[in-house]
């Protein structure tokens, strides 16, 4: 455990948290060397797909920091960060990877000490969780497939549109003037996350080669009925089709998108 030196990526907003990190330096406050910072103008620039990509590549932890709510240089930027982070956590919790590997925190330009504490504490947390399993390539687990599916799902139109429209849907209403409650929205979101995650898992599996519903069902540990439903949805989207039938069992394959 002691020789585990985690790789941690930090997304810091230019105005508050990056300035806070600089202040920790100016104040000579010491903290662990594990964080590698990517500066963005606003934490709202960070997409779930970017983080899932880093996790897939072998990051042990990812820290996102923005201005405190109400202090955002871009007024509402960090509220968008919060919504995207919520989607990200929903997706990660489905993959089997520890959701604690990713954390969102607010840190102001004046909080140098707090930034140093945050990095120290987060580094310790990642040390305690241990090295990412995505580096060891455990072929028995679906973890890599799951992370990739989560990334594809988060990059896809439906989830991106839902996150983008959340504020309007729960405050003003949609184009038809229909407003929904935060609870209703969360329920819609949860359902969409589950569907998109599963659909992308199946799609990614089929990209490796044609498979039957039964084969998919066995690999994913999902009932044939559910797999069948998703396969129908995938066919309706025009992403897959029947390639051939072997002894009466159809094999599905991906189509060019």
């Amino acid at each position, binding site marked *: 455990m002691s020789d585990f030196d985690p790789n941690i990526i930090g997304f810091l907003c230019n105005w508050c948290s990056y300035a806070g990190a*600089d202040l920790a330096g100016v104040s000579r406050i010491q903290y662990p060397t594990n964080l590698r910072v990517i500066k*963005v103008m606003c934490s*709202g620039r960070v997409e779930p797909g970017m983080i899932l990509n880093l996790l897939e590549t072998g990051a042990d932890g990812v820290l996102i920091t923005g201005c405190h709510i109400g202090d955002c240089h*871009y007024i509402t930027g960090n509220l968008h960060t919060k919504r995207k982070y919520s989607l990200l956590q929903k997706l990660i919790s489905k993959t089997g990877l520890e959701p604690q590997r990713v954390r969102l925190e607010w840190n102001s330009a004046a909080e140098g000490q707090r930034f140093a504490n945050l990095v120290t504490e987060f580094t310790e947390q990642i040390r305690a969780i241990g090295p990412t399993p995505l580096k060891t390539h455990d072929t028995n687990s679906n973890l890599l497939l799951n992370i990739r599916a989560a990334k594809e799902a988060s990059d896809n139109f439906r989830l991106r549109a839902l996150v983008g429209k959340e504020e309007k849907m729960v405050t003003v209403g949609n184009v038809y003037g229909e407003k929904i409650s935060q609870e209703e929205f969360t329920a819609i979101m949860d359902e969409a996350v589950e569907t998109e995650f599963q659909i992308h898992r199946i799609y990614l599996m089929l990209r490796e080669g044609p498979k039957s519903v039964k084969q998919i069902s066995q690999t994913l540990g999902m009932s044939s009925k559910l797999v069948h439903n998703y396969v129908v949805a995938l066919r309706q989207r025009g992403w897959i089709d029947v390639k051939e039938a072997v002894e009466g069992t159809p094999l599905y394959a991906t189509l060019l998108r």
Partner: protein
Amino acid sequence: MTSTPRIGVFVCRCGINIGAYVDVPKVVEYAKTLANVVNAEENMYTCSSDGLNKIKEAIKKNDLNRVVVASCTPRTHEPLFQETCEEAGVNKYLFEMANIRDQCSWVHMREPEKATKKAKDLVRMAVAKAALLAPGDEPEIDVNPSSLVIGGGVSGMQAALSLADQGFNVTLVEKAPELGGMLRTLDTLFPSNIKASKVLEPLLQEIKANPRIRVITNSKVKTVNGFIGNFDIGVEGDGKQERFNVGTIIVAVGADLLKPDGLYLYGQDARVRTQAQFEELVKMSKMDAKRIVMIQCVGARNEDRPYCSRICCNEALKNVLNAASPGREIFILYRDLQTYGVHYSRLEQDAKRKGVKFLKYQPDKPPQVTAEEDGLRIEFYSPTFNEKVELNADLLVLSTPLVPVMDAKELSQLLKVSLNSNGFFMEAHIKLRPIDFATDGIYICGTAHSPKDIGESVTQALAAASRAAIPMARRKVRAAAIISEVDQKKCSGCGTCIEVCPYNAIRKNDKGLAEVVAAVCKGCGICGATCPEKAITMHHFTDEEIEAQGLAALKET
């Protein structure tokens, strides 16, 4: 991006700031091995004219088309290095920085090996991003040549007058019923001891007579929208509201004096007064105390307020000199006397000549005050005599520090500018960009920035007026090219980007597709991160650039 990247890497030692903790030659050697890097070298100080010239020479000699500097922080030095690149013909958006000081050498001083590894990683990340950078064109923005000055104390008034003298219209907003600020509460001013009214009255008259200055009293700024050149301001007060547009804003809201409630019997015994109340007593000739004790640094330089308020020592000396008379004993209990400069140390000499006794106390053993029938008893440990000293007094005067105004935080949020850890307004950089806030078009002066005397406040006010005058005189500023762009082929016209943009910088064109108004875009990138079709490119922070940085960070070395 047509040409193959040819990247030059410049690793700064920053004297010992980086060089003592990061193995700079190793980082340079490592940088040479990275893809697209054609030249890597180290500098003692990359930001010195020598260091900057070496960048320009290397660009010419090696035909560089991308530059990476590994040094302090882009927040202070990026503009300087970008300018240098431009001078050598490399577009400023083809520059990238690795922060190996503020976020590396300074925070890993006890781990030089790991700090060196991290510095290499940070350089690798910067080089990976640099390879993908594209040049940018900066849009030009019109500047409304008028200014808003918030706060009508001596700083605000001076700044307003200076701007008006330069030909700009100024709106001066003051929350009190009258202009004057702290100057109005003072009797005389140190070190010359002239009457405060001798400074205040001419200023008030000049402002009144100046047709370019509009004064709004009893009012506060309630809304601020827009950006440099074009701020929409909403002011409220006196039951009235109004809106107007300015090109620049000067923050001169001043500071408050700390009320020492609960300290040294203040508020419980009428014989305990603040320095300001003492000045009032002296002014009204109502001061008949025979033995006076003053305590300096009351509620100052402690955990809550670690800073030195700078003016209290001289303020105390001024009052002491005005109050000193034969048969009156005065003691000043101090921690360190901040009578900096010739003028102020002369005050100290004068006070000593008049028999004022200066006694040092220690913050860990502060004076104890008890109220007796016949007077106040002040006991404290004297490090000079190495024993406990007891003093009796008819009057105890407390010197308290300047503290940030009550609504400093509210205003800082409104303007989107920073406060420092003491709660005062914070300039972009104390040496490189003093007076400016990090947010373009907003400037700071006076005690809103930090405790200072009137002379210093006036100097800073004139500096703020000069800074604000630059964009207003030019009538135009160049906005950063860190803006988003919609790919019209991918856009479906769903309008989500329009809903999430905090600045209304995106509109629909006649085809019903989204389009970014470059001059209004502030480059947050929220639209890019949100667009369901991934049709928006956030220039200088593209998906590809961010991904390249992340993957480079995770690359095993």
